[in-house]
């Protein structure tokens, strides 16, 4: 097709990008950058509603990170719990805060030294934990291929045998039922209120 073209052989490496795993690594760095930028914006933005939105995007990027690590259920739980949770937070922000749209409303707290100390100590702990781990990038996966699938997850969660989690699961479900009943008890009208309403009518 190009008979007269005599391009000198460009030394292109077999892998188009100098990453050990190619596409996966590009995806990781892209997601990590989005995650960090949105996390910084969450703290830096003055408006509380905007920071909630940036928080959601940070959580979604975290979910994509989980997905890259083949932990699909954790990724979906992350989206389900946090997006839903932050949405409800947004509702309450709108309902409970006045002066939301004004510049005077600020979430800035003057605790510069404490913040620096906390983040520095966190970085120190992370470096202490992560650096000693040998060959993190070339580690071997030692769990089964469908370990994180929904079926395996559910079977282990409801398993009776040694590796199952049926008792914690039941304890948590009773706790959730208790909170549900408590919420209904608080929200429902007492008999006195109903009687008063009837009198008014």
């Amino acid at each position, binding site marked *: 097709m*190009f008979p007269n073209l005599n391009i000198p052989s*460009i030394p292109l490496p077999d892998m188009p990008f100098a990453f050990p*795993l*190619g*596409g996966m690594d590009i995806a990781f760095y892209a997601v990590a950058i989005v995650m960090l930028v949105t996390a910084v914006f969450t703290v830096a933005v003055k*408006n509380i509603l*905007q920071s909630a939105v940036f928080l959601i995007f940070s959580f979604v990027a975290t979910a994509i990170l989980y997905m890259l690590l083949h932990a699909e259920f954790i990724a*979906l739980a992350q989206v389900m719990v946090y997006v839903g949770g932050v*949405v409800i937070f947004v509702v309450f922000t709108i309902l409970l805060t006045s002066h939301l749209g004004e510049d005077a409303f600020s979430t800035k707290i003057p605790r510069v030294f404490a913040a620096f100390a906390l983040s520095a100590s966190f970085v120190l702990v992370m470096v202490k934990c992560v650096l000693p781990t040998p060959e993190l990038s070339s580690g071997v996966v030692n769990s089964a291929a469908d370990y994180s699938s*929904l079926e395996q997850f559910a079977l282990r969660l409801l398993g009776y045998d040694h590796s199952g989690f049926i008792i914690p699961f039941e304890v948590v479900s009773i706790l959730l039922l208790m909170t549900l009943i408590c919420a209904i008890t608080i929200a429902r009208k007492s008999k006195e209120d109903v009687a008063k309403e009837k009198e008014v009518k």
Partner: protein
Amino acid sequence: MFVPSITNPIGDFVRDIVPRLAEYLPASIQSDTLNSIVAFLVNALICVIAVCAVNIGSAPILIYMERKVCAHVQCRLGPMRLGWHGTIQTIADVLKMLFKEVYAPSGADKLMFYLAPLIVLIAPFIVCALIPFGRNLVVADVSMGIPLIIAVNGFGVLGILLGGWSSNNKYSLLGALRSGAQMISYEISFAMILLFVVMISGSTNLMSITMGQEGTILDWWIFKIPVLGFIAFILFFISSTAEMNRAPFDIAEAEQELTGGYHTEYNGTPFAMFYLAEYIALVTNSALAVTCFLGGFLPPCIGIAAVDNYLNMVPGVIWFFAKVYFMIWCYMMVRWTFVRPRVDQLMDFEWKFLLPVNLVLLVAGAAYIVVFN
């Protein structure tokens, strides 16, 4: 080297043809890695175009259909002037909408104001990518389809809330808060019905949910479980209508009370995006109902071989879209038939009727599976 791949016949075709085309390139830039990356990118592009074509292409058709159905329900003719029976009217409307000036009201939070329509569009597009349109026609055949659908539905509420709040308008804010309460509540029963489907089909993958209904028309989930399937279908219909903010559950925008609700202040392209999201949600929810209850792309076989042979000759996509448009027609007839309930009636209906019935249905479904399997 890890290169993600898309597995279906079209993907195989692309993977086959890219290396053959690459042979014409100069030898120095040929490599297998480059070929597989190009093939993947072409496949991804095809998938994106397919999803966009189904979504954006169906919106003008649905707008025209809605206007005609509405008109005939109310003994009018609807659009008649432009083109044959007003067929070009929608295209003219879309063009007008796209060329309008886009501006935000003074005092609006500009970032949130323009972000909200984008967020609303996330959920319908992701759900559309999961739905199997035919035996080999599915963009993302993921194993956790139903949990993903439940997870991304939260973005719809977020977009509406942000749009309503950032408009700096009382009507918008009221509409947004109403719809936030409504959609969060009805999402619960929506998820419950999908859980019922997962329970009876034993899978969260939409393709295997469809393939579990293979056989005659009586094998569809709506008929296979005697009464429960039909009840579940009706409940799905109700909760998805409320989840889409469509009339009779459209208290979020209630024209007579709120002059349009959360999108009062929107115009031009952002308004078109809210509108688009609403109609795509109509398509995806109908497609979900078809996939979960009405046999997806499978033909309605009746068990007589002579008839079934003819029915099987029609491609699955045509059956799928026929069923989807039937469902959309049902949603439209409901919209123009029933009256809108009050806000408190709506919430009472969800929390005091729909949710308990859903829980009972889940228990009854479990009992059915235990007794008959």
